[in-house]
């Protein structure tokens, strides 16, 4: 009895310490975003002590920071925000639709060369993105897609190997008789995918959507390579130009404020979808 209590207490203490270590940088970012420029600068340079709570709360830092993005006051922020939203939503929708469709085909349609094609698709996962970066850039440049969102969005509509794999595994668990029942009910393969398979794949779709959202929202390299104009910039990109513009550390409070704003959607999404997320990891791995 005693040892069980002890074990539990140790586990709780260890987990609490771990959480604290993970959360502190975020909290500190938040604290600095509210500090006065002097204290923030000092903290960043290591001159000041690490404050757990800001001395004075300057909410105005946020308005100031967002106003300073881009060349036009506010316009830069609004452009970056809308670009980020458009790209992220399109990529999420495209990835979910294409990956589930291809996963369904791999799981349930018998076609010549299915096995080798599946292996080939898995093999693309082993290829580091850096290897294909330059050839891809050349391709997109030839197509005249540079400085548009197309290179970032269009590939998503052609599936993503990892998510196709996840969908395939999940769909393989769905009873064949459901598909046959739908066939007798009069639906073709597209109808079955849209009305039966996709609704049943909710856990996988949740994971796909969240992973894709977080990756695309925070993606820096993609937009950096393909988007050049100010009005095409995404939030992640804007964050960076912000740092260049105010290089040095005197405006670190503004940088932190924009970082917090950029982070909010991911945090909100994660909490909102946490249940589906955790369920999905379990159900995707073990059983349908």
């Amino acid at each position, binding site marked *: 009895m005693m040892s069980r209590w002890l074990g539990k207490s140790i586990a709780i203490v260890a987990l609490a310490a771990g959480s604290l270590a993970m959360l502190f940088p975020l909290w500190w970012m938040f604290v600095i975003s509210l500090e006065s420029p002097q204290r923030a600068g000092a903290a960043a340079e290591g001159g000041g002590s690490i404050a757990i709570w800001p001395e004075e709360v300057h909410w105005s830092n946020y308005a100031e920071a967002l106003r300073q993005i881009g060349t036009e006051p506010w316009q830069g922020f609004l452009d970056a925000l809308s670009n980020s939203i458009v790209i992220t939503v399109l990529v999420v929708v495209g990835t979910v639709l294409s990956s589930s469709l291809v996963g369904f085909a791999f799981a349930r349609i018998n076609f010549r060369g299915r096995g080798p094609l599946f292996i080939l698709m898995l093999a693309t996962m082993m290829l580091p993105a850096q290897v294909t970066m330059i050839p891809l850039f050349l391709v997109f440049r030839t197509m005249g897609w540079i400085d548009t969102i197309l290179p970032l969005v269009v590939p998503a509509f052609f599936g993503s190997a990892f998510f196709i794999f996840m969908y395939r595994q999940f769909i393989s668990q769905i009873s064949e008789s459901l598909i046959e*029942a739908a066939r*007798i*009910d009069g639906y073709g393969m597209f109808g079955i995918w849209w*009305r039966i398979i996709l609704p049943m794949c909710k856990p996988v779709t949740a994971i796909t959507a969240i992973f894709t959202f977080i990756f695309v929202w925070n993606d820096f390299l993609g937009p950096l390579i393909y988007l050049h104009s100010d009005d095409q910039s995404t939030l992640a990109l804007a964050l960076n130009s912000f740092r260049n513009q105010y290089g040095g550390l005197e405006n670190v409070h503004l940088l932190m404020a924009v970082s917090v704003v950029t982070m909010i959607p991911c945090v909100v999404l994660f909490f909102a979808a946490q249940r589906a997320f955790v369920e999905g990891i379990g159900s995707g791995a073990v059983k349908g």
Partner: protein
Amino acid sequence: MANVRLSSISKIYSGDVHAVNDVSLEITDGEFIVLVGPSGCGKSTTLRMIAGLESITSGDIHIDDRKVNTLAAKDRDIAMVFQDYALYPHMNVEKNLSFGLLRRRRYPSRLRSIFSGVYRKNRAAEQQDIQDRIRRSADVLGLKDLLGRHPRELSGGQRQRVALGRAIVRDPSVFLLDEPLSNLDAKLRGEMRTELRRLHRQLGATMVHVTHDQEEAMTLGDRLLVMKDGVVQQCGPPAQLYEHPANRFVASFIGTPEMNFLEGLIEDGLMFKADGKVRIQLPKDRWPSLLVGQQVTLGIRPEHLELASDGDAMFTGEADVVEQLGDRTDVILANDHRRMTARIASGSGLGEGDSASLRADLSQAHLFSTDEGGRRIGTNPR
């Protein structure tokens, strides 16, 4: 409603696996036919070929005199009930019932109903018709209170009824039932069997039912088609299969406990002789074609055996297992050479380990040839 005709249909999978071999069958309008056999005998494949879920290697299938060999499943006007029910888990019962109907609407477009009054009126009438159909089939199956529930919130029996309901709303010409009762517990299975029978009478529909359970087959079917290794063994009404099994396989498959088989030799004076000092005087005239010296298998059902005094006994052994079933008792008697099962009236006082003798009612016995087919040797019609 419709008749179904299978003409020499076969299914050969790659690697020369003959799943179904030259099956012919005429199912009349409104008939309840049961395909029965051990697992892997091709009964489900046959059903799936009728459904259009499996292609036909050779032969023809006609539904209502229309050749349907290459017709898609959805165009054959059939409904199928699956072993695992195949209910759409993300839809409630009502949606499950209406799913097939919605697809078959003639006025599906909401957009067009905005612009055309006639279309709007037709569409409303059609929606009403769908609602009526759902209500009627829910009434028939007692699903009225469950319409809003999801499959996961239903018991096994309720799911089974929804699966049946989904077939009924469609009002198909043929119902195909693929082992629909095998996932239910024994009591529920009995209830659903009665319900299926009642439903068949009520709808007057043509039904093809697949099962491996011979008891289910006997109680449900107007006619049974017994299959083994993709080949039809016998087709006929339950009583015919029980009383006149075409071969040894059918004889052993139909009836529980299984028929007893004794392999032996015909001697002078129609004396059947087998190992273990079994000597049975066969009745005269019952088997006119029998020859002296012929090897045969004698088949006798447990219910045609009774306890006997030593004098007229055909078999003596020790009671190995005694199963009390209430009104009757199943006894397995064993001696050094063989075991025989007898179904006797309860109250004989026979206990396990006791010695007992059996007498057979030979007017109910069957003789089979000892070759591979085990064909039944013809008897004189009486």
